[in-house]
């Protein structure tokens, strides 16, 4: 990104297992860095003030809002985005469950939900529906009314136990 | 948005009036005033930078004094415009003497806030206006006390 107002900072980060080195403006949001610098456009931007959760990614295994971090802040850290979970031919169990339970419609909020849920199920492999809804409290979805998302998370928990 | 309240000054009404009537002093009482220019006896403009915690905004401000009834009441028109929005307010103040050389000021008015700050900061309007009014009046009282001393 061209910058005429600020000096650039060196940044080295591992994203979905690949190491990237870039120079960025300190004000560049992590969400923009992922989407527009690295073309990892699976991470979506819905509000840029930390409420909708569409931009959630995993930083060192925990979910964060990529719109509430500057790219420079992930220097030396590990990031996982939706592109890092599974592939079309080899879906992550959570992704598979979302397809089976119809846990998405327009799919815009989905990447942020998937990353959040993957981290959640690692800390809580046997969640109750109430715990699932709590875990989703930081992700807004306008299409599904959340019910099929809750079903999908429950299903994913079962799948991951089987594994 | 309605703004109203009262304040007790540690000084006689005439002294308070002199300060209130001096827009330069008034501008100083707006927290964060940088510069003041006199346009006329009743109109002053200036640069104000409002800071509330992490929030900050530079405003081009204007104060106009009207309907004076010395030394008891007048109307103040305040305007501020800046990158984060604008503020327009018209308020009246009325002062009565209390025993012990103190002065009671009652103030009330309507403020209109617009732009970015209005669209995302509404939760804070009331508290901000309260705290800014308090800061301003405290400052005025300090000036008053020092001028008495």
């Amino acid at each position: 990104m061209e910058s005429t107002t600020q000096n650039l900072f060196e940044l080295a980060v591992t994203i979905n297992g690949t190491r990237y080195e870039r120079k960025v403006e300190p004000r560049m949001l992590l969400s923009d860095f992922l989407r527009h610098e690295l073309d990892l456009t699976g991470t979506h931007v819905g509000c840029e003030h930390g409420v909708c959760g569409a931009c959630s990614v995993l930083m060192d295994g925990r979910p964060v809002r990529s719109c509430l971090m500057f790219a420079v802040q992930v220097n030396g850290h590990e990031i996982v985005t939706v592109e890092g979970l599974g592939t079309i031919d080899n879906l992550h169990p959570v992704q598979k469950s979302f397809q089976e339970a119809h846990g998405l419609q327009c799919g815009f909020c989905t990447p942020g939900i998937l990353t959040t849920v993957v981290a959640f199920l690692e800390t809580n492999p046997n969640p109750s529906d109430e715990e699932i809804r709590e875990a989703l409290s930081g992700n807004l979805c306008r299409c599904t009314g959340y019910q099929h998302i809750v079903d999908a998370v429950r299903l994913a928990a079962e799948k991951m136990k089987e594994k | 948005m309605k703004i109203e309240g009262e304040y007790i000054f540690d000084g006689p009404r005439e002294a308070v009036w002199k300060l209130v009537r001096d827009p330069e002093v008034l501008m100083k009482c707006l927290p964060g005033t940088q510069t003041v220019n006199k346009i006329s006896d009743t109109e002053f403009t200036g640069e104000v930078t409002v800071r509330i915690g992490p929030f900050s905004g530079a405003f081009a401000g204007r104060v106009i004094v009207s309907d004076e009834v010395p030394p008891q009441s007048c109307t103040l028109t305040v305007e501020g415009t800046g990158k984060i929005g604008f503020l327009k307010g018209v308020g009246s103040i009325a002062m009565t003497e209390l025993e012990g050389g103190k002065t009671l000021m009652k103030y009330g008015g309507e403020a209109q806030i617009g732009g970015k700050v209005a669209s995302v900061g509404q939760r804070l309007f009331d508290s901000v206006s309260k705290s800014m009014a308090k800061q301003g009046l405290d400052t005025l009282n300090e000036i008053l006390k020092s001028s008495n001393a």
Partner: protein
Amino acid sequence: MKPAPFEYHAPTTVEQALSVLAEHGYDAKVLAGGQSLIPMMNFRLAQPAVLVDMNNIPDLAFIKAGDDGLRIGAMTRHYQVETSSIAAERAPLIHATMPKIAYPQVRTRGTFGGSISHADPAAELPTLTTALDGKFRLVSLRGERWIPASEFFLGLFTTSLEPDEILVEASIPPPPPHTGWSLQEVARRPHDFALVGVTAVLTLDANGRCENARLVFLSVGDRPMVAERAADLLKGQEITSEAIRAAAELASAEEIDPSSDIHATVDFRRHLANVLCQRAIEQAVQRAKENKE
């Protein structure tokens, strides 16, 4: 919605951070978790010229059980407190409140010291630390000082931190025996800023009378609102439902200063303060009775 330009500093020691602050004063802003600051920067309502990022200072993230109570480093993340057994044991009120703060993603980044320094009157931690008689360690190149929570919060987003100072840790004293606590909140949605919240911390004496009481409200003033007179009504008393009602009445009528916004009027906030205060006292008493040690 993109932030305005700023000069970025990423110190690795507190000293480095302090010298940047000392140099830039009001123009510099400390970036902790950024979960309140960065949204405001994205809206461009906050445009700090200089940003001092504390996230590369590992020494500031810790949870320790000291003899004077629980010590929490300023850069300790909310989720770390949420999942800390030491915190659960030494400051159950704080530990139990953590899941109520914002959302999982925010708790990954949000910090204990950041939330306190931000001093949002609707936030939980300022109220809890005040109710628990916590104190904070502030440092600057000029030296360091401890300040009680009750004196730290001065107004809306305003604390006794000087522009060149940083809050580096909080200390929460151990609760005396027979102490019970409660945080009661009402929010539009569970994880929104509460319309009103109140914390009650009560200590009972041997014969079940109230030895000590703290009632602190959030979202009904420009800072955590301490209802001292209401608490005094309870002290030395047997805590009957009359006593509870009287205390809640007094607190909600005279010891808070609520504002109206689009979600709640002053009237409704006073009403909620009254209702929640009664519930908080009742639950705190209950816990105090259970809490034998």
